[in-house]
């Protein structure tokens, strides 16, 4: 026995949102909640460290690396647009550029951490500032790393010729994630280098 009733109008327009997009938006919602808690903790603990070094002494805003990360949002947008138009070559080029910009940003974080740890003597256990700083920036950095892995996987598939125009929708889902990583950086940057300093 089936519940089918054939009385529906034959021309019924039945279109639902793509599950990949919905899933990614919900994941972004969950990630935002996680970041919110870390941001709240950061703001709550601003100026509460009992010992140095203090943020104003050791932090300087990484403007160049921020520009790199934010412009990677633009390049991934162009990449996705190229794929939708079927231009795989141009897609690969923009995609590679996105990965490089992300990698440069990650290098920026790494060199800042290296300077803080070896020159300024600030580790995650030094004081409250260290704990909150490495946690929040580290959480974001972790998301950049995950994103770079995902982007590189797509690049590898592209090099072997497995990515075609019909995969544009999936690439769009991944680019949503990358836009989120960039957007979070704006919040982290504001909190750590503007408000918290």
């Amino acid at each position, binding site marked *: 026995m*089936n519940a089918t009733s054939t009385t529906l109008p034959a021309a019924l327009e039945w279109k639902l949102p793509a599950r990949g997009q919905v899933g990614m938006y919900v994941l972004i919602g969950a990630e935002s909640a996680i970041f919110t808690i870390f941001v709240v903790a950061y703001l709550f603990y601003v100026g509460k460290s009992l010992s140095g070094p203090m943020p104003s002494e050791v932090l300087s805003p990484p403007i160049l690396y921020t520009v790199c990360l934010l412009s990677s949002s633009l390049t991934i947008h162009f990449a996705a647009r190229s794929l939708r138009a079927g231009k795989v070559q141009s897609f690969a080029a923009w995609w590679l550029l996105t990965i490089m910009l992300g990698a440069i940003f990650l290098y920026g974080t790494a060199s800042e951490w290296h300077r803080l740890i070896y020159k300024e003597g600030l580790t995650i256990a030094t004081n409250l500032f260290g704990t909150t700083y490495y946690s929040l920036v580290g959480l974001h950095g972790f998301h950049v790393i995950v994103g770079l892995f995902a982007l590189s996987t797509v690049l590898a598939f592209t090099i072997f010729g497995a990515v075609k125009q019909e995969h544009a929708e999936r690439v769009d889902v991944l680019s949503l994630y990358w836009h989120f990583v960039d957007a979070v950086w704006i919040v982290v940057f504001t909190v750590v280098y503007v408000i918290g300093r």
Partner: protein
Amino acid sequence: MSTDAIALPGTELASTPVAARLHAWITTVDHKRLGILYITYALVFLVIGGVEATIMRIQLIRPHNDFVSPQVFNRMFTMHGTTMIFFVAMPVMFGFANYLIPLMIGARDMAFPRLNAFSFWMTAFGGLLLYFSLVGANGLYGAGNAPDVGWFAYAPLTSRTFSVGHSTDFWTLALLVSGFGSIGTAINIIATVLSMRCPGMTLAKMPLFAWLNLVMAGLVILAVSPLTAAQIMLVIDRYLGGHFFDTQAGGSAVIWMHFFWVFGHPEVYVLVIPAFAFASEIIPVFSRKPIFGYPVMVGATVAIGFISMSVWAHHMFTVGMSSAANTFFVISTMAIAVPTGIKIFNWLATMWGGKIEFKTPMLFLIAFLFQFLIAGLTGVMLASAPFDWQLGNSYFVVAHFHYVIVGAILFCLFGAFYYWFPKMSGKMYNETLGKLHFWLFFVGFHLTFDFMHIPGLLGMPRRIYTYEPGRGWDTWNLIVTIGVFFQAAGTLVFLGNLIWSYFRGRLAGNDPWDAWTLEWSTDSPPPAYNFYTIPSVQSRRPLWDLKHPDDPDWKYE
């Protein structure tokens, strides 16, 4: 863990070797099998968590009892709370959602079947990790040491100084891992409900079960993620020497409370909204009437979801917050009673004038209505900050939230088990045993949790392992413990009924309840692909339309 004792969809031939069948279950991505895995897993932990509760109650049966040591008592209440919330209540709700949502919305599977399997195994791994602490926490040389910091694990109890060894690490990692599973399942539920509905099923024609689970999944996203964040902070504190909750270095113990209860209170609604979902499906079928006030039910559920995000600090009145904060959380907590009350009235109005059939599922649901009302009333009492200052952390609070979790959620859940067992197993349960289960559990529940309020009012604090005689608590504690044995007996009858009926029950047929939602249109148990052809619907009760072509619902909706 006899997975196949509960409800194998009878798709395998009897001659399939055991190893192959086991392999099929472990590698499955079928939403029905994962649903059953979730449910079976939760039932195993229900028994474990129940044994822990029984041990606590035996210890408290009389003053100066020495059934267990204070240390073991601490572990028991920690493990009982953690197990029941994270490894019984959430998995069992996810199990039913997994099993039923695709069937109810006319889909062939969840939106992301492999994510579904991943989420289940993460949850399963979390539970095993928690219980591995019994042998692993002190290293294998020790006698074992389960977590003993309480289920909300307040700082600084969780710091290295006060919690040596690895018991707290097992606790925090278990919750972290199972949290990833919960978030994965929530993503899956939302994507399934929004993107997988069969033609004609607009959001306004969706069964309430799907609607309520959609709200539940949204709450999981907004509530479990903060818990995950807080657990990451705790891990940083314990392993990397961080100072988030270290007051010696300027950190704050209170912020852990905020982070925990930002999760902890919506979590109550994560559990109770699926229970409402069961009620909203079962009560109409056994009242032989469509649900009263469908749009209002949806609106009230969404309202509960919203308000539940802003009530968390009513768990913290006794901590000492500003009077502005106290006032806000008193008002928001009391406000949540309004949409909840609307729902109770809608269920009553559904029953009003209906032709009520007192089958086992309906008995549990009727008991739920009255018990949930009382649980809500003590909730409003505790929402008042001055009242809470007097009774916070007393047995009154314990009685209140067990009234919600057992009296409302577990009763709905038992009703759901009996209602959908014929669909999942293809067999009818034994009605006599079902009624016996109901009455045993009903009597046991009221013996335990009605009388538990009284020692609380008389000043008995929670989490004490023993007490002095002559404070007027003795008799009440004796009655409370006696009730536990009735509940345990009822639960054993329940499990026995499931197993017996699975092997010996009569065939149930596709639609034993003459119900109206799509899952009853397919075989019992449903085939792997659910529907031979994808159905299309025109009203909220597609099977009613099919059975009554002369008077279909869509003419009126």
